[in-house]
């Protein structure tokens, strides 16, 4: 029986950027973009469920974000998570990775004896890959990053493969541990139909009317939310205040126009191109 925490982030779909993605103050205008489950966090959740399916346990998905981030928690319930937690408070806004990891680590600490924490390697918006390790540091767990395969596990240990860039490392660790997961590890399962029927009404408390609330609670539809006060956190270490890094300036990337010389597709044109290439070739060889 293992208690497994999955850290998940809702992210703007940066592969399909449109409109005004950034606000004046350099924060993300999430409203302008479709929001998705950070891809590698789905792999982390899949790994947690795989472990639970075999050796038993409990999977808890935690996200820090705006109320809208409850969407990925609902999806987590569909996939098979036992519990979900939405950590949300205006005072958490504009957190850098130090402040984000502080809040996540405190949440994990307060909810007791965790055996395994799984995070995505990297979120596709902030792109830092720093939150996983910084949580590991704060909760004092062993850490293995860039996990590319789960080889073997039981109640006492895990054996994983790590993508060490120039080498592949096969590593054994006991519990507790924090792993950051890459997309090579597995293919996330589809939502389960029965669970979709069970949880399709799942939402945060504020979105239920007073008359609906008791039914919602009885059916487990209420996604629990936690604020700074609920977690009794030091405000100085959260959000903008707790963030040593500040976004000073944001610039969207413009195409820079080169002085382009276009060649035709006729034989002589291609011959000319090859001659021009040979000039560089002669220079370098």
């Amino acid at each position: 029986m293992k208690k497994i925490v999955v850290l998940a982030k809702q992210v703007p779909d940066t592969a399909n950027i449109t409109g005004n993605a950034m606000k004046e103050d350099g924060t993300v205008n999430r409203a302008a973009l479709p929001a998705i489950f950070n891809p590698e966090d789905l792999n982390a959740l899949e790994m947690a469920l795989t472990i639970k399916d075999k050796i038993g346990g409990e999977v808890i998905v935690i996200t820090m974000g705006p109320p809208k981030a409850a969407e990925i928690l609902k999806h987590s319930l569909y996939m098979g998570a036992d519990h979900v937690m939405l950590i949300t408070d205006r005072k958490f806004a504009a957190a850098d990775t130090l402040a984000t990891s502080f809040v996540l680590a405190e949440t994990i600490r307060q909810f007791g004896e965790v055996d395994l924490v799984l995070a995505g390697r990297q979120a596709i918006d902030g792109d830092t890959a720093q939150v996983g390790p910084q949580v590991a540091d704060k909760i004092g767990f062993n850490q293995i990053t860039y996990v590319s395969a789960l080889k073997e596990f039981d109640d006492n240990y895990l054996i994983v493969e790590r993508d060490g860039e120039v080498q592949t490392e096969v590593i054994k660790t006991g519990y507790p541990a924090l792993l950051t997961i890459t997309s090579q590890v597995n293919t996330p399962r589809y939502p389960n139909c029965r669970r979709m029927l069970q949880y399709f009404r799942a939402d945060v408390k504020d979105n239920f009317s007073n008359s609906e609330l008791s039914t919602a609670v009885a059916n487990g539809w209420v996604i629990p939310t936690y604020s700074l006060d609920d977690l009794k956190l030091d405000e100085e270490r959260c959000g903008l205040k707790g963030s040593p890094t500040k976004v000073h300036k944001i610039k969207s990337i413009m195409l820079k126009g080169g002085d382009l010389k276009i060649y035709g597709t006729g034989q002589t044109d291609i011959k000319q191109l090859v001659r021009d290439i040979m000039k560089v070739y002669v220079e370098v060889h």
Partner: protein
Amino acid sequence: MKAIVFIEKNPVTGKLRNVSIELTHKAYTLSNPFKGEVVGVFAGDALPGNTDELFRFGMSRLLYFIDARLKHLHSIAFKHTFVEMIRSEEPDIVLFGATHTGRDIAPLIASSLKTGLTADCTQLYIEDYKNKGKILYQVRPAFGGNILATIITPDHRPMMASVREGVMLLPEERLNHPVKMEPFTIDFNESWVKSEFLSVIPKVKKVDFGSANIIISGGAGVGSAENFRLIRDLANALKGEVGASRAAVDFGFAEKDHQIGQTGSVVRPMLYIACGISGQIQHRAGMEESQKIIAINKDPEAPIFNIAHMGIVGDLNEIIPVMLRYLKEEG
């Protein structure tokens, strides 16, 4: 401005990783105008074979800690070692290579020191900030490469940043700093070793972009794994290296090692020939600093033409064979 550079050894070759040399030089250009020094920090089972190189690129001193237990990436042990080294030096700046090792350890160190860490910077410079004196400005792409953010750490020290390999350029000239090696002692605590490394399999490196002056890359437009032969033939004829877009890798035309871009390698060859590559921002992030860019694409509106110096609008299946024929003639 005192700068610390995290020095990393390639465990397969036993030599310095290029990024360690690149960052030594960068740290030197950042700190030298302010009479600062560059201090390297290294921990491992043995020093890199070519450690002296660092002193030709601006390093003043190297602190090192050698212990057989540091043969493998025991993250916690490395963290404690570097935290102690950094505390003893009190630097303004600490730079890491954004390698799989640097990105494993740097966040742990920043968390322990409760300071800021800016990831994957492409530009670093020093300027005044309000009444706080000179600080490090850290420019980095984020949001899948769609924006460039300038990040600062105004109130905390050290200011920490990571930089990917190949991003910072090396100068032609060499410096002649005396080699100064300083062993560092720490009380190694056995409890820092929490993982057991059962085996380590070196990846066979099939691609060497670092020394390639010419790179020929293929994208989704190449059409099939079989057709990718055209790209390899062109690379052979020009004694160049083969690159690929992520789409080409995803389709199985080329192996992941060949990928160029935000999630692949960053390259800046003398000549980059992009064949059937549209030139999305994430691909450009890895190649737009190339000296000369040639694009072969059948779509005249493809964004690659916005950064190309030479281009042909047409079908690569017709163009490349003709090029190969003339290349043979030119010989």
